[in-house]
């Protein structure tokens, strides 16, 4: 059985290499394996279909629509004008603005997919326009989007907490400091990168421009207040917030008189096309995940793990390495569902805190969103910029250094995660 699964992997790799669309490259060999395994005809498609039937996934098209509308209705331009007016005299201004807005947006969004689709759509072209290389702009935007699923609210955290039966609140609290450390790591990288780039223009501070820009940005600046306020005061859930955000974009568009039927229709078309490409991969990843579950691949991996060592340090190192590899190959949600029930009992036996384990796992798997062959953030970045995936990955690769450094830091110092939940009394 395992041997046949290797063959499935080889065929998928071959199909990807000859440019078969990623979703179909997963579906074909998985379908073939499922039939060989004796499942009913229709199993592969049914699993793909069911994999898409998840309420939190609805945030993906809606937040893509938010980003597309923000760009087409001139809302993103106002935010940018404000950020530039404020940070114009700092070298690497747009890069810091990129991380700052990712942190801001991360309090509203629970998934990196929605983030990079929304923010990436407006940020990458603007950075390129301002003279940044495409690879740096795309790499930074893709990397900073990982702050969203780490910072609460976080869809992977909700899934982990449910699977591990730990407190979602405690896991959320434990994720706050690591999310800020990720942002700091990216800023540090920007600092060193821009130190060598004297050509990047800075703009002298202009008081009148700043005031004008600040007034123009009041509307867009209210977005996080409305969404976060709505979520925190119990008006709507994080997924539902996505639809409220679309509505708010419409309201702003009406206020700024940029709403036109033609513009709205084109926003819908663009969103439908981007969503269609991403969602097929999400469904196909659900199929691949179920096949691995049925074959107990993760269980075998866990049995191997325990046979190697009984030191918690060695265990966490091995877990990180294995998750990085799995994260490159499989959808994060599927990995959480499949590995947590197996790895967590081992972890707790070794005295590893399940909340800390969850934070490490989520950061690790989110890095997997940036690595081929299965890296949803890579693909979305490629899709929203119209550039090939390999070009995007070349931009992302250097950013893996600060991100993995942050992962190592948090793995080495559990208190970075566990301090805040302790203070808040979870």
């Amino acid at each position: 059985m395992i041997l046949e699964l290797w063959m499935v992997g080889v065929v998928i790799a071959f199909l990807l290499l000859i440019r078969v669309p990623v979703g179909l490259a997963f579906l074909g060999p998985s379908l073939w394996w499922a039939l060989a395994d004796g499942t009913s005809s229709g199993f592969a498609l049914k699993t793909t279909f069911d994999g898409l039937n998840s309420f939190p996934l609805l945030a993906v098209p809606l937040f893509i629509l938010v980003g597309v509308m923000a760009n087409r209705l001139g809302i993103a331009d106002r935010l940018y004008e404000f950020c530039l007016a404020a940070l114009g005299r700092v070298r690497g201004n747009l890069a810091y603005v990129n991380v700052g807005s990712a942190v801001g947006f991360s309090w509203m969004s629970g998934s990196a997919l929605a983030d990079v689709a929304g923010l990436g759509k407006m940020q990458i072209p603007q950075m390129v326009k301002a003279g940044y290389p495409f690879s740096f702009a795309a790499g930074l935007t893709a990397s900073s989007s990982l702050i969203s699923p780490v910072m609460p609210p976080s869809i992977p955290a909700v899934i982990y907490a449910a699977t591990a039966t730990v407190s979602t609140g405690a896991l959320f609290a434990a994720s706050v400091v690591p999310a800020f450390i990720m942002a700091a790591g990216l800023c540090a990288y920007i600092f060193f990168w821009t130190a060598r780039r004297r050509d990047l223009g800075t703009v002298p501070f202009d008081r009148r421009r700043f005031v004008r820009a600040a007034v123009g940005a009041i509307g867009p600046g209210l977005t996080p207040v409305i969404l976060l306020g709505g979520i925190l005061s119990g008006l709507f859930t994080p997924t539902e917030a996505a639809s409220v955000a679309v509505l708010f974009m419409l309201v702003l568009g009406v206020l700024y008189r940029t709403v036109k039927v033609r513009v709205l229709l084109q926003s819908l078309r663009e969103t439908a096309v981007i969503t269609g490409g991403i969602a097929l991969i999400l469904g196909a990843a659900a199929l691949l995940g179920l096949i691995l579950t049925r074959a107990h691949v993760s269980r075998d991996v866990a049995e191997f793990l325990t046979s190697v060592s009984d030191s918690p340090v060695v265990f966490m190192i091995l877990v990180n390495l294995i998750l990085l590899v799995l994260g490159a190959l499989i959808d994060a949600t599927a990995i959480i569902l499949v590995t947590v029930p197996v790895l967590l009992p081992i972890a707790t036996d070794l005295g590893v805190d399940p909340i800390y384990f969850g934070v490490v796992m989520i950061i690790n798997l989110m890095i997997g969103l940036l690595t081929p062959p299965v890296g949803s953030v890579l693909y979305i970045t490629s899709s929203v910029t119209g550039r090939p995936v390999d070009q995007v990955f070349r931009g992302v690769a250097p950013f893996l250094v600060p991100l993995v450094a942050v992962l190592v830091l948090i793995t080495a110092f559990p208190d970075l995660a566990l301090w805040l939940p302790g203070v808040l009394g979870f």
Partner: protein
Amino acid sequence: ACTTQNNTAPSAGENPQLTIKIGSSQPESQPNFYCGMKLLKERVEGQNLNLTLDLFPNSQLGPDAERFAGVQAGDIDIDLQGGSAMSTAFPKIGVLDAAYAFNDIDHFFKWVDSNGKDFFTEFNGATDTTIVDAWYFGMRTFTATAPIRKPEDLASLKIRFPNTPQFLANAKALGANAVSIALEELYLALQQGVAQGQENPVVATHAQKFDEILKVASLTNHQVGTHYVVVSDKTLDKMSQPQKDALFTAIHDIRAENRTCVDDETEKVLDGWRGESGRTVVEIDQVDRAAFIAKAEAHFTSYYKGADLELYKSIRATAG
């Protein structure tokens, strides 16, 4: 109940080597896993009948309704299913989930043992799956931000019910102000006050940590929570008679042990709640059960029609 005219069916005496995949929504920490699925594996495999049981707890094989379709297709051999997920294929089974249709678990098991055979045969005809028995899951109760002693207490609270017609009918029948929230978002929604309560058996509420937020448990016990042990007929066709006998006997035997486990675990959680300062448990005798039952009966006798109404009435007639 299963079809045996399949000509590939093994003859008595030979036991084909089979690996049986068993799915469930329950995590490994829950009684229906450690006092259910796991026991079943030990008992059946211990008889050396060439059967291997492969356990997939914690919704690893997908959500309830999707897994049941998998049982129908033969992709999953056995599953633990609540009635409402299977009502998409056999609507009538939803009636067994009606609020206060059964007074308690004894009433439920009594009904299953005397009326279950015909009912499950009809179910089998419609779904190509066989319900062998039902395992207890716990009485569904409310956990909320305020006590619920009588139907009027429900009206002022937004309570999350699972988003299926039968559960929403239960909400109406009890006089609750039901809101729909996906299970994935429920914890956060409760934390932020999108809803002020939810209903689940005590053990499930505790396992999903909803009791971290909701400090008042009201033991309304408004619905008998059970998991039917449902087997794919495609699987049964492959099994020898001794294999089927061993499987069915083990499932029946586990029913009582599993119930004790669920009761013990429920009491353990309840005792923890009772002993905690700042937490309230509205005990069974502090709930106006008669008012709830009367309200529910009045609703369902007009809500159900035809065969569903007949079934509902026949259940209530045995309520004693």
